[in-house]
């Protein structure tokens, strides 16, 4: 198994690496709707109590020079926001009675960040 990516204080999130670490809104949404609800809830319950610490950690770095562990934590924080409506409101992975997923295209630009190579 690869060495841990995340800092020690976020070791509880290591099991979500790399599957839940996705760079774009499009990828995160496609991922969310394919998960089991219980796995979304598990992720939500694991990461939400850590969010203040997570933000404090990633905000040590400038947007244009983020080390890989910080970038991964940012993506996990964004993934929480992706799963929040499913967990807190719908109680199911995708929006109920919604416009077809396949016809709805997410074309969001990439975030303005730069990740350091090592």
């Amino acid at each position, binding site marked *: 198994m690869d060495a841990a990516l995340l800092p020690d204080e976020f070791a509880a999130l290591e099991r979500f690496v790399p599957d839940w670490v996705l760079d774009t809104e499009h990828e995160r949404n496609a991922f969310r709707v394919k998960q089991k609800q219980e796995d979304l809830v598990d992720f939500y319950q694991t990461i*939400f109590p850590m969010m203040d610490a997570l933000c404090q950690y*990633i905000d040590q770095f400038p947007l244009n020079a983020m080390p890989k562990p910080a970038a991964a934590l940012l993506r996990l924080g964004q993934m929480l926001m992706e799963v929040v409506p499913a967990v*807190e409101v719908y109680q199911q992975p995708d*929006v109920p009675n919604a416009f077809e997923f396949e016809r709805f295209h997410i*074309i969001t*630009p990439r975030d303005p960040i730069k990740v350091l190579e090592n």
Partner: protein
Amino acid sequence: MKTEAPTNVKADAPAGVPPEDAARLPDWSNTRPVADRYPGMDTSELPIEPYVSEDFFELEREKIFKKVWLYVGRAERIPKAGDYFVQVIEAVRSKKDGIAPSFIITRDQNGEVRAFYNTCMHRGTTVCWDQHESWETSHRRYFSCRFHGWVYDLDGSLKSVPDENQFFNLNKEQRGLKPVHCEVWKDFIFINVDPEPQQTLLEQIKPHADLLVDFPFEKMRKRGIWTAEVNVNWKVAIDAFQEGYHVNTVHAATLPEAFNGPLNPNCRPTSIRLHEQGNRSITFMVSPTFEPPEVEKWVRQRGSSWYAAGGEDAGLAYPGTNPDKDPFYAFDCHGFFPNMLVDPYIGGFYGHEFWPITVNRTRWIGSINFTEPEKPSDLITHEHGKTTLRDAFREDTVTLDASQVGLESGALETTILCDGEAAPRHLYNAVMEMVNS
């Protein structure tokens, strides 16, 4: 125009609503927000023909879309000289069943935003073949045609022609890319394909330009974009996003309580301005009894989501928002005639474009915009606004095809609108005025 505080306040607050909150809003049972502001306004039913007739659609193309300023994109998308994108606009095609023309929107060497027909002036071939799958930007130092290699500068001038001396009477100064009128307002790029526009962009959007003069649109960046081709007339699509009457039903899953609590169960607008030339501005409120879910609470301690949360938020001065000082302010919806909605709130704005393809096909583009992130965690709070708004749009869009099926079924000759559906009527009236001109 009515801006004073409501006088016919309700004496008894609904269960769970603090009396001082209830006292700040009208007695809804005796109020019609739009008709009260515009006594004697037209309340007749609307014929459905303008939403289903191919002939009427042709009149709209000729008399509206080929005559007015159309929003095509944000200048932030082309920050450097030579950045460009290609925009296909079906509604301005030259023939009824013709092919949609495309346009190059670029920034020239002097930093000016310019628009051209994407057409080589040699034998008409498309110059830039980009198909933007996403909100991508392309970049070139000059535009060269793939057919015979004619080269145009970023300002459209014809720069070089291979084997030029083999042409007869070629005047290169008259063979530059054909320009299209192009103006920029607060980073919004508009074009007008009419060779002699009947008014300036600022004349067309004047009510919004006045109301929103201080809103910092030019400092905001597009951070979420979603699109779908929907089988519906373009006006029906717009109307689905410019009234609150649908919120209680359509958004039962995504926004079950935020906007339609006991003080305003059917999400009536709290202020509305019906401007000249089909422009309109509406304000919606949040429910003061709404208790946000845990993560939304956490987000709101750090920044904003996609609407203001009333209370302290509503008191924040954010220039250009909440024109009637609604104490439970959520967001405004500004309808820019003909086919754009701009919805500012405290901290950002979202919006929609509606591009007619045929009488019953429309390309919808929804988006949300935030100020530049200052630190990495801003991208997390932004993400909350993006996902919750996007999921709500998945509910709005589901009604669209279904509406057109019914309108075309022959079952009804008219639609009937309530007070809070004044914006659809205002759009309809403006369309009729231009089509009949």
